[in-house]
Protein backbone atom coordinates (compact mmCIF):
# COMPACT_ATOMS: atom_id res chain seq x y z
CA UNK A 1 0.00 0.00 0.00
CA UNK A 2 1.41 3.28 -1.06
CA UNK A 3 0.61 5.07 2.17
CA UNK A 4 3.19 3.02 3.97
CA UNK A 5 5.75 2.94 1.19
CA UNK A 6 6.20 6.09 -0.78
CA UNK A 7 5.01 8.87 1.42
CA UNK A 8 7.90 10.99 2.61
CA UNK A 9 7.90 12.85 5.87
CA UNK A 10 4.88 14.06 7.74
CA UNK A 11 2.54 11.11 7.87
CA UNK A 12 -0.21 11.10 10.46
CA UNK A 13 1.48 8.16 12.10
CA UNK A 14 4.42 10.28 13.00
CA UNK A 15 4.25 13.84 14.12
CA UNK A 16 7.90 12.87 14.31
CA UNK A 17 9.45 12.85 16.72
CA UNK A 18 6.28 12.40 18.66
CA UNK A 19 5.42 14.78 21.43
CA UNK A 20 5.28 11.90 23.82
CA UNK A 21 8.89 11.01 23.09
CA UNK A 22 9.79 14.63 23.69
CA UNK A 23 8.10 14.54 27.09
CA UNK A 24 9.76 11.26 27.95
CA UNK A 25 13.14 12.80 27.09
CA UNK A 26 12.43 15.90 29.11
CA UNK A 27 14.10 16.11 32.52
CA UNK A 28 12.28 14.31 35.30
CA UNK A 29 11.06 17.43 37.04
CA UNK A 30 9.36 18.64 33.84
CA UNK A 31 7.45 15.41 33.55
CA UNK A 32 6.33 15.47 37.17
CA UNK A 33 5.43 19.15 36.91
CA UNK A 34 3.29 18.45 33.84
CA UNK A 35 1.63 15.51 35.55
CA UNK A 36 0.90 17.59 38.65
CA UNK A 37 -0.44 20.40 36.49
CA UNK A 38 -2.69 18.01 34.60
CA UNK A 39 -4.07 16.45 37.78
CA UNK A 40 -4.62 19.87 39.32
CA UNK A 41 -6.48 21.00 36.19
CA UNK A 42 -8.64 17.86 36.30
CA UNK A 43 -9.44 18.46 39.97
CA UNK A 44 -10.30 22.11 39.35
CA UNK A 45 -12.24 21.73 36.07
CA UNK A 46 -15.87 21.65 37.31
CA UNK A 47 -15.24 24.79 39.33
CA UNK A 48 -14.29 26.75 36.24
CA UNK A 49 -16.79 25.32 33.76
CA UNK A 50 -20.33 24.09 33.83
CA UNK A 51 -19.97 20.71 35.55
CA UNK A 52 -21.97 19.06 32.76
CA UNK A 53 -19.45 20.32 30.22
CA UNK A 54 -16.60 19.13 32.42
CA UNK A 55 -18.17 15.65 32.49
CA UNK A 56 -18.39 15.65 28.68
CA UNK A 57 -14.75 16.66 28.45
CA UNK A 58 -13.70 13.69 30.59
CA UNK A 59 -15.68 11.27 28.42
CA UNK A 60 -14.32 12.72 25.19
CA UNK A 61 -10.80 12.66 26.61
CA UNK A 62 -11.06 8.88 26.97
CA UNK A 63 -12.51 8.64 23.46
CA UNK A 64 -9.68 10.71 21.99
CA UNK A 65 -6.98 8.75 23.79
CA UNK A 66 -8.53 5.52 22.47
CA UNK A 67 -8.46 6.83 18.90
CA UNK A 68 -4.89 8.09 19.31
CA UNK A 69 -3.79 4.69 20.56
CA UNK A 70 -4.61 3.41 17.08
CA UNK A 71 -3.87 6.46 14.96
CA UNK A 72 -0.76 7.70 16.70
CA UNK A 73 0.80 4.50 17.98
CA UNK A 74 -0.34 1.79 15.57
CA UNK A 75 -0.69 3.86 12.40
CA UNK A 76 -4.35 2.92 11.88
CA UNK A 77 -6.93 5.65 11.41
CA UNK A 78 -10.25 4.33 12.63
CA UNK A 79 -13.03 6.43 11.22
CA UNK A 80 -15.63 4.27 12.88
CA UNK A 81 -14.95 4.49 16.57
CA UNK A 82 -18.47 5.73 17.22
CA UNK A 83 -19.38 2.04 16.91
CA UNK A 84 -17.60 1.33 20.20
CA UNK A 85 -18.44 4.58 21.95
CA UNK A 86 -22.10 4.18 20.97
CA UNK A 87 -22.45 0.45 21.58
CA UNK A 88 -21.07 0.94 25.06
CA UNK A 89 -23.43 3.87 25.62
CA UNK A 90 -26.43 1.69 24.71
CA UNK A 91 -25.29 -1.35 26.69
CA UNK A 92 -24.44 0.80 29.70
CA UNK A 93 -27.81 2.50 29.49
CA UNK A 94 -29.69 -0.81 29.18
CA UNK A 95 -27.78 -2.41 32.06
CA UNK A 96 -28.24 0.63 34.27
CA UNK A 97 -31.96 0.87 33.51
CA UNK A 98 -32.87 -2.83 33.73
CA UNK A 99 -30.38 -4.25 36.24
CA UNK A 100 -30.11 -1.26 38.53
CA UNK A 101 -26.43 -1.92 39.10
CA UNK A 102 -24.05 0.78 40.39
CA UNK A 103 -23.09 2.86 37.39
CA UNK A 104 -19.40 1.86 37.29
CA UNK A 105 -20.45 -1.77 36.78
CA UNK A 106 -22.86 -0.75 34.03
CA UNK A 107 -20.07 1.21 32.34
CA UNK A 108 -17.76 -1.78 32.67
CA UNK A 109 -20.40 -3.97 31.00
CA UNK A 110 -20.73 -1.42 28.21
CA UNK A 111 -16.99 -1.20 27.65
CA UNK A 112 -16.72 -5.00 27.59
CA UNK A 113 -19.50 -5.14 25.00
CA UNK A 114 -17.60 -2.59 22.91
CA UNK A 115 -14.43 -4.68 23.19
CA UNK A 116 -16.34 -7.81 22.11
CA UNK A 117 -17.74 -5.93 19.11
CA UNK A 118 -14.22 -4.74 18.29
CA UNK A 119 -13.05 -8.32 17.79
CA UNK A 120 -14.91 -9.11 14.53
CA UNK A 121 -14.72 -5.54 13.20
CA UNK A 122 -11.03 -5.34 13.99
CA UNK A 123 -10.36 -8.80 12.58
CA UNK A 124 -11.80 -7.73 9.22
CA UNK A 125 -10.49 -4.17 9.24
CA UNK A 126 -6.83 -4.97 9.95
CA UNK A 127 -6.76 -6.89 6.69
CA UNK A 128 -6.50 -3.47 5.06
CA UNK A 129 -4.23 -0.54 5.85
CA UNK A 130 -4.10 3.19 5.29
CA UNK A 131 -7.07 4.86 3.73
CA UNK A 132 -8.88 1.53 3.22
CA UNK A 133 -8.79 0.91 6.96
CA UNK A 134 -10.52 4.24 7.47
CA UNK A 135 -13.20 3.39 4.91
CA UNK A 136 -13.79 -0.12 6.25
CA UNK A 137 -14.15 1.02 9.87
CA UNK A 138 -16.45 3.84 8.76
CA UNK A 139 -18.62 1.36 6.87
CA UNK A 140 -18.88 -1.08 9.78
CA UNK A 141 -19.75 1.75 12.15
CA UNK A 142 -22.54 2.74 9.78
CA UNK A 143 -23.71 -0.86 9.86
CA UNK A 144 -23.91 -0.71 13.67
CA UNK A 145 -25.84 2.55 13.31
CA UNK A 146 -28.40 0.94 11.00
CA UNK A 147 -28.76 -2.06 13.30
CA UNK A 148 -29.43 0.22 16.28
CA UNK A 149 -31.89 2.19 14.17
CA UNK A 150 -33.81 -0.93 13.12
CA UNK A 151 -33.67 -2.80 16.43
CA UNK A 152 -36.26 -0.55 18.02
CA UNK A 153 -37.47 -3.02 20.63
CA UNK A 154 -34.10 -2.67 22.35
CA UNK A 155 -32.77 0.76 21.42
CA UNK A 156 -36.10 2.65 21.20
CA UNK A 157 -34.98 3.85 17.76
CA UNK A 158 -35.29 7.59 17.26
CA UNK A 159 -36.61 8.16 20.78
CA UNK A 160 -33.46 6.89 22.42
CA UNK A 161 -32.99 5.38 25.85
CA UNK A 162 -34.43 7.72 28.44
CA UNK A 163 -33.80 7.93 32.15
CA UNK A 164 -30.44 6.19 32.56
CA UNK A 165 -29.95 6.20 36.36
CA UNK A 166 -26.80 7.34 38.17
CA UNK A 167 -26.92 4.67 40.84
CA UNK A 168 -23.95 4.41 43.22
CA UNK A 169 -24.70 2.88 46.64
CA UNK A 170 -27.66 5.20 47.01
CA UNK A 171 -25.54 8.37 46.93
CA UNK A 172 -27.15 11.39 45.36
CA UNK A 173 -25.24 12.06 42.16
CA UNK A 174 -27.90 14.05 40.35
CA UNK A 175 -25.72 17.16 40.66
CA UNK A 176 -23.20 17.10 37.80
CA UNK A 177 -20.63 18.67 40.09
CA UNK A 178 -20.50 15.57 42.34
CA UNK A 179 -20.94 13.22 39.42
CA UNK A 180 -17.78 14.68 37.89
CA UNK A 181 -15.74 13.65 40.91
CA UNK A 182 -17.42 10.26 40.92
CA UNK A 183 -16.25 9.47 37.39
CA UNK A 184 -12.86 11.17 37.59
CA UNK A 185 -11.10 8.11 39.10
CA UNK A 186 -12.49 5.86 36.36
CA UNK A 187 -11.32 8.27 33.66
CA UNK A 188 -7.87 8.60 35.22
CA UNK A 189 -7.64 4.81 35.37
CA UNK A 190 -8.51 4.62 31.68
CA UNK A 191 -5.94 7.26 30.78
CA UNK A 192 -3.29 5.55 32.92
CA UNK A 193 -4.09 2.27 31.18
CA UNK A 194 -3.55 3.91 27.78
CA UNK A 195 -0.23 5.34 29.00
CA UNK A 196 0.80 1.95 30.32
CA UNK A 197 -0.08 0.26 27.01
CA UNK A 198 1.94 2.75 25.01
CA UNK A 199 4.99 2.38 27.26
CA UNK A 200 4.85 -1.39 27.53
CA UNK A 201 6.92 -3.72 25.35
CA UNK A 202 3.65 -4.38 23.53
CA UNK A 203 3.31 -0.66 22.80
CA UNK A 204 6.86 -0.50 21.46
CA UNK A 205 6.02 -3.31 19.05
CA UNK A 206 2.96 -1.36 17.91
CA UNK A 207 5.13 1.67 17.14
CA UNK A 208 7.51 -0.64 15.30
CA UNK A 209 4.62 -1.94 13.21
CA UNK A 210 3.49 1.62 12.56
CA UNK A 211 6.91 2.71 11.33
CA UNK A 212 7.86 -0.37 9.37
CA UNK A 213 5.33 -3.19 9.14
CA UNK A 214 7.49 -5.28 6.82
CA UNK A 215 10.41 -5.24 9.25
CA UNK A 216 8.15 -6.03 12.21
CA UNK A 217 6.86 -9.04 10.30
CA UNK A 218 10.37 -10.09 9.34
CA UNK A 219 11.33 -9.96 13.00
CA UNK A 220 8.64 -12.52 13.65
CA UNK A 221 5.89 -10.37 15.14
CA UNK A 222 2.38 -11.45 14.13
CA UNK A 223 1.45 -8.01 12.80
CA UNK A 224 -2.27 -8.65 12.34
CA UNK A 225 -2.65 -10.04 15.83
CA UNK A 226 -0.88 -7.06 17.36
CA UNK A 227 -3.05 -4.65 15.42
CA UNK A 228 -6.18 -6.53 16.41
CA UNK A 229 -5.19 -6.47 20.09
CA UNK A 230 -4.57 -2.74 19.88
CA UNK A 231 -7.93 -2.31 18.16
CA UNK A 232 -9.79 -4.22 20.89
CA UNK A 233 -8.02 -2.33 23.69
CA UNK A 234 -8.86 0.92 21.94
CA UNK A 235 -12.46 -0.18 21.58
CA UNK A 236 -12.59 -0.91 25.31
CA UNK A 237 -11.25 2.53 26.27
CA UNK A 238 -13.59 4.26 23.81
CA UNK A 239 -16.35 2.16 25.40
CA UNK A 240 -15.44 3.41 28.87
CA UNK A 241 -15.87 6.96 27.59
CA UNK A 242 -19.14 6.15 25.82
CA UNK A 243 -20.61 4.42 28.87
CA UNK A 244 -19.77 7.34 31.14
CA UNK A 245 -21.23 9.67 28.50
CA UNK A 246 -24.50 7.74 28.63
CA UNK A 247 -24.72 7.93 32.42
CA UNK A 248 -23.63 11.57 32.32
CA UNK A 249 -26.44 12.55 29.96
CA UNK A 250 -28.92 10.07 31.48
CA UNK A 251 -29.98 9.57 27.87
CA UNK A 252 -28.69 7.67 24.84
CA UNK A 253 -29.64 8.71 21.31
CA UNK A 254 -28.65 7.41 17.89
CA UNK A 255 -26.22 10.34 17.63
CA UNK A 256 -23.67 8.37 19.66
CA UNK A 257 -23.34 5.97 16.73
CA UNK A 258 -23.44 8.52 13.93
CA UNK A 259 -20.49 8.92 11.55
CA UNK A 260 -20.08 12.55 12.60
CA UNK A 261 -19.24 11.29 16.11
CA UNK A 262 -16.45 9.13 14.68
CA UNK A 263 -15.16 12.07 12.68
CA UNK A 264 -15.26 14.38 15.67
CA UNK A 265 -13.15 11.92 17.66
CA UNK A 266 -10.51 11.94 14.93
CA UNK A 267 -10.41 15.73 14.68
CA UNK A 268 -10.10 16.02 18.45
CA UNK A 269 -6.99 13.86 18.19
CA UNK A 270 -5.53 15.73 15.22
CA UNK A 271 -6.16 19.07 16.91
CA UNK A 272 -4.44 17.89 20.08
CA UNK A 273 -1.60 16.24 18.20
CA UNK A 274 -1.44 12.74 16.68
CA UNK A 275 0.77 10.35 18.63
CA UNK A 276 0.93 12.52 21.73
CA UNK A 277 -1.73 10.76 23.84
CA UNK A 278 -2.35 13.78 26.12
CA UNK A 279 -2.86 16.04 23.14
CA UNK A 280 -6.19 14.29 22.62
CA UNK A 281 -7.22 15.26 26.15
CA UNK A 282 -6.49 18.91 25.36
CA UNK A 283 -8.29 18.62 22.03
CA UNK A 284 -11.33 17.14 23.78
CA UNK A 285 -11.40 20.05 26.22
CA UNK A 286 -11.23 22.63 23.44
CA UNK A 287 -13.76 21.06 21.06
CA UNK A 288 -16.34 20.20 23.75
CA UNK A 289 -16.05 23.65 25.33
CA UNK A 290 -16.31 25.36 21.95
CA UNK A 291 -19.36 23.36 20.87
CA UNK A 292 -21.06 24.08 24.17
CA UNK A 293 -20.34 27.77 23.80
CA UNK A 294 -21.66 27.78 20.23
CA UNK A 295 -24.89 25.98 21.06
CA UNK A 296 -25.35 28.22 24.11
CA UNK A 297 -25.01 31.32 21.97
CA UNK A 298 -27.75 29.98 19.69
CA UNK A 299 -25.49 29.33 16.71
CA UNK A 300 -27.07 26.50 14.75
CA UNK A 301 -24.50 25.49 12.18
CA UNK A 302 -22.04 23.79 14.52
CA UNK A 303 -20.85 21.65 11.61
CA UNK A 304 -19.63 24.84 9.94
CA UNK A 305 -17.29 25.44 12.86
CA UNK A 306 -16.16 21.84 13.43
CA UNK A 307 -15.71 21.46 9.68
CA UNK A 308 -13.75 24.70 9.61
CA UNK A 309 -11.51 23.48 12.45
CA UNK A 310 -10.97 20.27 10.48
CA UNK A 311 -9.85 22.14 7.38
CA UNK A 312 -7.66 24.64 9.20
CA UNK A 313 -5.95 22.04 11.38
CA UNK A 314 -5.28 19.71 8.47
CA UNK A 315 -3.97 22.46 6.20
CA UNK A 316 -2.03 24.61 8.66
CA UNK A 317 -1.57 22.86 11.96
CA UNK A 318 -0.92 19.17 11.38
CA UNK A 319 1.27 18.74 14.44
CA UNK A 320 -1.57 19.74 16.70
CA UNK A 321 -1.33 21.64 19.96
CA UNK A 322 0.75 19.19 21.96
CA UNK A 323 3.00 18.39 19.00
CA UNK A 324 3.65 22.08 18.30
CA UNK A 325 4.27 22.87 21.95
CA UNK A 326 6.76 20.05 22.38
CA UNK A 327 8.52 21.01 19.13
CA UNK A 328 8.81 24.55 20.47
CA UNK A 329 10.12 23.32 23.81
CA UNK A 330 12.67 21.21 22.01
CA UNK A 331 13.87 24.14 19.94
CA UNK A 332 14.24 26.32 23.05
CA UNK A 333 16.16 23.58 24.81
CA UNK A 334 18.45 23.16 21.82
CA UNK A 335 19.16 26.89 21.76
CA UNK A 336 20.11 26.91 25.42
CA UNK A 337 22.75 24.24 24.91
Amino acid at each position, binding site marked *: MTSTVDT*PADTPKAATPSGLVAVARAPGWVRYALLALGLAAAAWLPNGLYPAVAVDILCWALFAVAVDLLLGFTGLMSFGHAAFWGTSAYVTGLVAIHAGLPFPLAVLAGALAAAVLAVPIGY*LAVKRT*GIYFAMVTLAFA*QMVYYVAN*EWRSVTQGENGLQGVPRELFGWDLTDDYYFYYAILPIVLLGLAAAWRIVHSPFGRVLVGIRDNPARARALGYPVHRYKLTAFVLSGFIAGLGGGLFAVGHRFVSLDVLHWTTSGKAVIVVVLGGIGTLWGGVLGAGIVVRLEDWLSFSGFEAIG*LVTGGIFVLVVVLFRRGIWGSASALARRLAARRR
Partner: protein
Amino acid sequence: MSGFAQNTFNGLVSGAFYALLALGLAVIFGMLRVVNFAHGAFYMLGAFGAYVLLTEAGVPFWAALVIMPVGLGLLGMALERAVIHRLTRLDPLYNFLLTFGLTLILQDLVKLRYGVQSSPYATPSLLSGTVNFGLFDFPTYRVFILGFAVLLCVAVWWVLTRTRIGMVVRAATERPDLTRAFGIDVGRWVTPVFGFGIGLAGLAGVLAAPMRAVNPLMGADLIIVVFAVVVIGGLGSIFGSVAAGFGIGLVQAWGEAYLSNFPIVSQTIVFIVMAVVLLWRPAGLFGREEAPA
Protein backbone atom coordinates in the same frame (compact mmCIF):
# COMPACT_ATOMS: atom_id res chain seq x y z
CA MET B 1 -41.59 -13.34 -12.51
CA SER B 2 -42.52 -9.76 -13.21
CA GLY B 3 -41.92 -8.97 -9.54
CA PHE B 4 -38.39 -10.27 -9.87
CA ALA B 5 -37.83 -8.29 -13.05
CA GLN B 6 -39.09 -5.19 -11.34
CA ASN B 7 -36.78 -5.63 -8.36
CA THR B 8 -33.88 -6.30 -10.65
CA PHE B 9 -34.62 -3.20 -12.67
CA ASN B 10 -34.90 -1.01 -9.57
CA GLY B 11 -31.68 -2.50 -8.26
CA LEU B 12 -29.88 -1.59 -11.45
CA VAL B 13 -31.23 1.97 -11.25
CA SER B 14 -29.98 2.53 -7.70
CA GLY B 15 -26.82 0.71 -8.73
CA ALA B 16 -26.38 3.31 -11.46
CA PHE B 17 -26.01 6.01 -8.80
CA TYR B 18 -23.48 3.92 -6.88
CA ALA B 19 -21.61 3.26 -10.10
CA LEU B 20 -21.44 6.93 -11.12
CA LEU B 21 -20.22 7.96 -7.67
CA ALA B 22 -17.79 5.05 -7.38
CA LEU B 23 -16.47 5.83 -10.86
CA GLY B 24 -15.67 9.41 -9.85
CA LEU B 25 -14.07 8.26 -6.61
CA ALA B 26 -11.96 5.69 -8.44
CA VAL B 27 -10.76 8.08 -11.13
CA ILE B 28 -9.81 10.69 -8.52
CA PHE B 29 -8.15 8.09 -6.32
CA GLY B 30 -6.19 6.71 -9.24
CA MET B 31 -4.77 10.06 -10.23
CA LEU B 32 -4.39 11.82 -6.88
CA ARG B 33 -4.39 9.05 -4.26
CA VAL B 34 -7.16 11.04 -2.60
CA VAL B 35 -10.31 9.44 -1.22
CA ASN B 36 -12.77 12.25 -1.55
CA PHE B 37 -15.14 12.20 1.41
CA ALA B 38 -16.89 15.28 0.00
CA HIS B 39 -18.08 13.25 -2.99
CA GLY B 40 -21.45 12.80 -1.33
CA ALA B 41 -21.65 16.50 -0.58
CA PHE B 42 -21.08 17.32 -4.25
CA TYR B 43 -23.80 14.85 -5.20
CA MET B 44 -26.08 16.72 -2.79
CA LEU B 45 -25.01 20.06 -4.28
CA GLY B 46 -25.85 18.73 -7.74
CA ALA B 47 -29.38 17.85 -6.67
CA PHE B 48 -29.83 21.02 -4.64
CA GLY B 49 -28.42 23.15 -7.42
CA ALA B 50 -30.92 21.69 -9.87
CA TYR B 51 -33.72 22.38 -7.38
CA VAL B 52 -32.63 25.98 -6.76
CA LEU B 53 -32.15 26.63 -10.47
CA LEU B 54 -35.65 25.38 -11.20
CA THR B 55 -37.50 27.11 -8.36
CA GLU B 56 -35.60 30.39 -8.28
CA ALA B 57 -34.60 30.90 -11.90
CA GLY B 58 -36.94 28.60 -13.82
CA VAL B 59 -34.03 26.71 -15.36
CA PRO B 60 -35.35 23.34 -16.61
CA PHE B 61 -33.95 19.91 -15.81
CA TRP B 62 -32.13 19.53 -19.13
CA ALA B 63 -30.20 22.75 -18.67
CA ALA B 64 -29.38 21.84 -15.07
CA LEU B 65 -28.06 18.51 -16.31
CA VAL B 66 -25.34 20.47 -18.10
CA ILE B 67 -24.91 23.50 -15.85
CA MET B 68 -24.50 21.69 -12.51
CA PRO B 69 -21.83 19.13 -13.52
CA VAL B 70 -19.81 21.79 -15.33
CA GLY B 71 -20.19 24.32 -12.51
CA LEU B 72 -19.35 21.82 -9.80
CA GLY B 73 -16.50 20.43 -11.87
CA LEU B 74 -15.01 23.93 -12.04
CA LEU B 75 -15.58 24.38 -8.30
CA GLY B 76 -13.83 21.06 -7.76
CA MET B 77 -10.87 22.18 -9.85
CA ALA B 78 -10.61 25.39 -7.85
CA LEU B 79 -10.75 23.35 -4.65
CA GLU B 80 -8.04 21.03 -5.87
CA ARG B 81 -5.78 23.99 -6.71
CA ALA B 82 -6.53 25.81 -3.46
CA VAL B 83 -6.19 23.12 -0.80
CA ILE B 84 -6.22 19.47 -1.83
CA HIS B 85 -3.15 20.00 -3.98
CA ARG B 86 -1.13 21.08 -0.91
CA LEU B 87 -1.79 17.79 0.85
CA THR B 88 -1.35 15.24 -1.93
CA ARG B 89 2.32 14.69 -1.06
CA LEU B 90 1.36 13.71 2.48
CA ASP B 91 -0.38 10.60 3.69
CA PRO B 92 -3.78 10.23 1.93
CA LEU B 93 -5.43 10.27 5.34
CA TYR B 94 -4.93 14.04 5.52
CA ASN B 95 -6.98 14.67 2.41
CA PHE B 96 -9.61 12.28 3.71
CA LEU B 97 -9.84 14.44 6.84
CA LEU B 98 -9.81 17.65 4.82
CA THR B 99 -12.66 16.53 2.59
CA PHE B 100 -14.54 15.29 5.67
CA GLY B 101 -14.31 18.82 7.07
CA LEU B 102 -15.48 20.23 3.73
CA THR B 103 -18.47 17.87 3.84
CA LEU B 104 -19.55 19.26 7.21
CA ILE B 105 -19.13 22.82 5.95
CA LEU B 106 -21.03 22.31 2.68
CA GLN B 107 -23.85 20.46 4.43
CA ASP B 108 -24.28 23.13 7.05
CA LEU B 109 -24.14 25.97 4.53
CA VAL B 110 -27.02 24.41 2.62
CA LYS B 111 -28.82 23.65 5.88
CA LEU B 112 -28.49 27.25 7.06
CA ARG B 113 -30.00 28.58 3.86
CA TYR B 114 -32.67 25.98 3.08
CA GLY B 115 -33.32 23.99 6.27
CA VAL B 116 -33.33 20.22 6.56
CA GLN B 117 -36.73 19.42 5.08
CA SER B 118 -36.87 17.59 1.77
CA SER B 119 -37.88 19.47 -1.33
CA PRO B 120 -39.79 17.87 -4.22
CA TYR B 121 -38.44 18.17 -7.76
CA ALA B 122 -40.83 17.42 -10.61
CA THR B 123 -39.84 14.80 -13.17
CA PRO B 124 -39.25 16.53 -16.53
CA SER B 125 -42.41 16.18 -18.60
CA LEU B 126 -40.62 14.41 -21.45
CA LEU B 127 -39.68 11.60 -19.07
CA SER B 128 -42.82 11.25 -16.99
CA GLY B 129 -45.08 8.28 -17.52
CA THR B 130 -44.08 4.69 -18.11
CA VAL B 131 -42.69 2.49 -20.84
CA ASN B 132 -43.83 -1.08 -21.31
CA PHE B 133 -41.23 -3.64 -22.34
CA GLY B 134 -43.61 -6.55 -21.93
CA LEU B 135 -42.93 -7.60 -18.34
CA PHE B 136 -44.31 -4.58 -16.51
CA ASP B 137 -44.54 -0.81 -16.85
CA PHE B 138 -41.15 0.78 -16.33
CA PRO B 139 -41.18 4.40 -15.16
CA THR B 140 -39.67 6.27 -18.11
CA TYR B 141 -37.46 8.39 -15.90
CA ARG B 142 -35.78 5.36 -14.36
CA VAL B 143 -35.19 3.80 -17.76
CA PHE B 144 -33.59 7.09 -18.77
CA ILE B 145 -31.30 7.11 -15.70
CA LEU B 146 -30.18 3.56 -16.30
CA GLY B 147 -29.50 4.13 -19.99
CA PHE B 148 -27.77 7.42 -19.34
CA ALA B 149 -25.53 5.99 -16.62
CA VAL B 150 -24.56 2.96 -18.67
CA LEU B 151 -23.81 5.19 -21.64
CA LEU B 152 -21.69 7.44 -19.45
CA CYS B 153 -19.71 4.55 -18.00
CA VAL B 154 -19.08 3.18 -21.48
CA ALA B 155 -17.99 6.63 -22.65
CA VAL B 156 -15.55 6.98 -19.75
CA TRP B 157 -14.23 3.49 -20.47
CA TRP B 158 -13.76 4.46 -24.12
CA VAL B 159 -11.90 7.64 -23.19
CA LEU B 160 -9.67 5.78 -20.77
CA THR B 161 -8.76 2.96 -23.12
CA ARG B 162 -8.89 4.48 -26.59
CA THR B 163 -7.62 8.04 -26.32
CA ARG B 164 -4.26 9.56 -25.57
CA ILE B 165 -5.59 11.41 -22.53
CA GLY B 166 -6.95 8.15 -21.20
CA MET B 167 -3.63 6.44 -21.71
CA VAL B 168 -1.83 9.16 -19.81
CA VAL B 169 -4.31 8.94 -16.97
CA ARG B 170 -4.06 5.16 -16.76
CA ALA B 171 -0.27 5.23 -16.94
CA ALA B 172 -0.10 7.92 -14.28
CA THR B 173 -2.47 5.89 -12.12
CA GLU B 174 -0.34 2.77 -12.25
CA ARG B 175 3.22 4.13 -12.34
CA PRO B 176 3.33 7.90 -11.75
CA ASP B 177 7.12 8.09 -11.53
CA LEU B 178 7.75 6.01 -14.62
CA THR B 179 5.19 8.05 -16.57
CA ARG B 180 7.01 11.23 -15.57
CA ALA B 181 10.31 9.69 -16.59
CA PHE B 182 8.91 9.28 -20.10
CA GLY B 183 8.52 13.01 -20.25
CA ILE B 184 4.77 13.17 -19.73
CA ASP B 185 3.56 16.07 -17.65
CA VAL B 186 1.38 14.17 -15.18
CA GLY B 187 0.69 17.19 -13.01
CA ARG B 188 -1.15 18.85 -15.87
CA TRP B 189 -3.90 16.22 -15.76
CA VAL B 190 -4.43 16.09 -12.03
CA THR B 191 -6.71 19.11 -11.71
CA PRO B 192 -8.92 18.29 -14.73
CA VAL B 193 -9.32 14.70 -13.54
CA PHE B 194 -10.38 15.87 -10.10
CA GLY B 195 -12.85 18.28 -11.66
CA PHE B 196 -14.17 15.50 -13.86
CA GLY B 197 -14.77 13.20 -10.88
CA ILE B 198 -16.61 15.97 -9.04
CA GLY B 199 -18.61 16.70 -12.16
CA LEU B 200 -19.75 13.08 -12.26
CA ALA B 201 -20.92 13.36 -8.66
CA GLY B 202 -22.82 16.54 -9.53
CA LEU B 203 -24.38 14.83 -12.52
CA ALA B 204 -25.52 11.92 -10.37
CA GLY B 205 -27.04 14.50 -8.02
CA VAL B 206 -29.04 16.19 -10.79
CA LEU B 207 -30.25 12.78 -11.98
CA ALA B 208 -31.30 11.93 -8.42
CA ALA B 209 -33.27 15.15 -7.88
CA PRO B 210 -36.56 14.02 -9.47
CA MET B 211 -36.33 10.57 -7.92
CA ARG B 212 -35.06 11.04 -4.39
CA ALA B 213 -35.80 13.53 -1.65
CA VAL B 214 -33.64 16.62 -2.14
CA ASN B 215 -32.20 17.58 1.23
CA PRO B 216 -28.83 18.64 2.68
CA LEU B 217 -28.12 15.21 4.15
CA MET B 218 -28.90 13.11 1.07
CA GLY B 219 -25.24 12.66 0.15
CA ALA B 220 -23.76 11.80 3.52
CA ASP B 221 -25.31 8.40 4.12
CA LEU B 222 -24.96 7.53 0.46
CA ILE B 223 -21.22 8.17 0.38
CA ILE B 224 -20.59 5.68 3.18
CA VAL B 225 -22.36 2.99 1.18
CA VAL B 226 -20.28 4.01 -1.84
CA PHE B 227 -17.14 3.59 0.28
CA ALA B 228 -18.27 0.04 1.02
CA VAL B 229 -18.88 -0.39 -2.73
CA VAL B 230 -15.34 0.66 -3.65
CA VAL B 231 -13.86 -1.52 -0.91
CA ILE B 232 -15.81 -4.42 -2.44
CA GLY B 233 -14.81 -3.60 -6.01
CA GLY B 234 -11.26 -2.53 -5.25
CA LEU B 235 -10.68 1.20 -5.43
CA GLY B 236 -7.66 0.84 -7.68
CA SER B 237 -9.83 -0.73 -10.37
CA ILE B 238 -12.13 1.59 -12.30
CA PHE B 239 -13.99 -1.31 -13.88
CA GLY B 240 -14.28 -2.99 -10.48
CA SER B 241 -15.81 0.10 -8.90
CA VAL B 242 -18.47 0.41 -11.57
CA ALA B 243 -19.27 -3.32 -11.56
CA ALA B 244 -19.50 -3.36 -7.77
CA GLY B 245 -21.77 -0.31 -7.92
CA PHE B 246 -24.33 -2.07 -10.11
CA GLY B 247 -23.85 -5.34 -8.22
CA ILE B 248 -24.54 -3.75 -4.85
CA GLY B 249 -27.60 -2.00 -6.23
CA LEU B 250 -28.94 -5.40 -7.28
CA VAL B 251 -28.10 -7.14 -4.02
CA GLN B 252 -29.72 -4.34 -2.05
CA ALA B 253 -32.91 -4.41 -4.10
CA TRP B 254 -33.22 -8.19 -3.87
CA GLY B 255 -32.46 -8.03 -0.18
CA GLU B 256 -35.19 -5.49 0.39
CA ALA B 257 -37.66 -7.54 -1.62
CA TYR B 258 -36.96 -11.03 -0.32
CA LEU B 259 -35.61 -10.39 3.17
CA SER B 260 -38.20 -7.83 4.18
CA ASN B 261 -38.97 -9.93 7.27
CA PHE B 262 -35.43 -9.26 8.47
CA PRO B 263 -35.10 -5.49 8.19
CA ILE B 264 -31.79 -5.54 10.07
CA VAL B 265 -30.29 -7.81 7.42
CA SER B 266 -31.80 -6.04 4.42
CA GLN B 267 -30.70 -2.62 5.70
CA THR B 268 -27.12 -3.71 6.28
CA ILE B 269 -26.65 -6.15 3.42
CA VAL B 270 -24.02 -3.95 1.74
CA PHE B 271 -21.84 -4.12 4.82
CA ILE B 272 -22.36 -7.87 5.14
CA VAL B 273 -21.18 -8.28 1.55
CA MET B 274 -18.20 -6.08 2.38
CA ALA B 275 -17.32 -8.27 5.36
CA VAL B 276 -17.48 -11.41 3.20
CA VAL B 277 -15.29 -9.82 0.52
CA LEU B 278 -12.75 -8.75 3.15
CA LEU B 279 -12.57 -12.32 4.38
CA TRP B 280 -12.35 -13.85 0.96
CA ARG B 281 -10.44 -11.31 -1.15
CA PRO B 282 -9.14 -8.53 1.11
CA ALA B 283 -7.97 -6.42 -1.85
CA GLY B 284 -11.48 -6.29 -3.30
CA LEU B 285 -13.05 -8.36 -6.04
CA PHE B 286 -11.16 -6.62 -8.84
CA GLY B 287 -8.37 -5.02 -6.83
CA ARG B 288 -4.73 -5.99 -6.88
CA GLU B 289 -3.03 -7.29 -3.79
CA GLU B 290 -1.49 -4.60 -1.64
CA ALA B 291 2.11 -4.78 -0.61
CA PRO B 292 2.14 -6.96 2.50
CA ALA B 293 1.70 -4.86 5.60
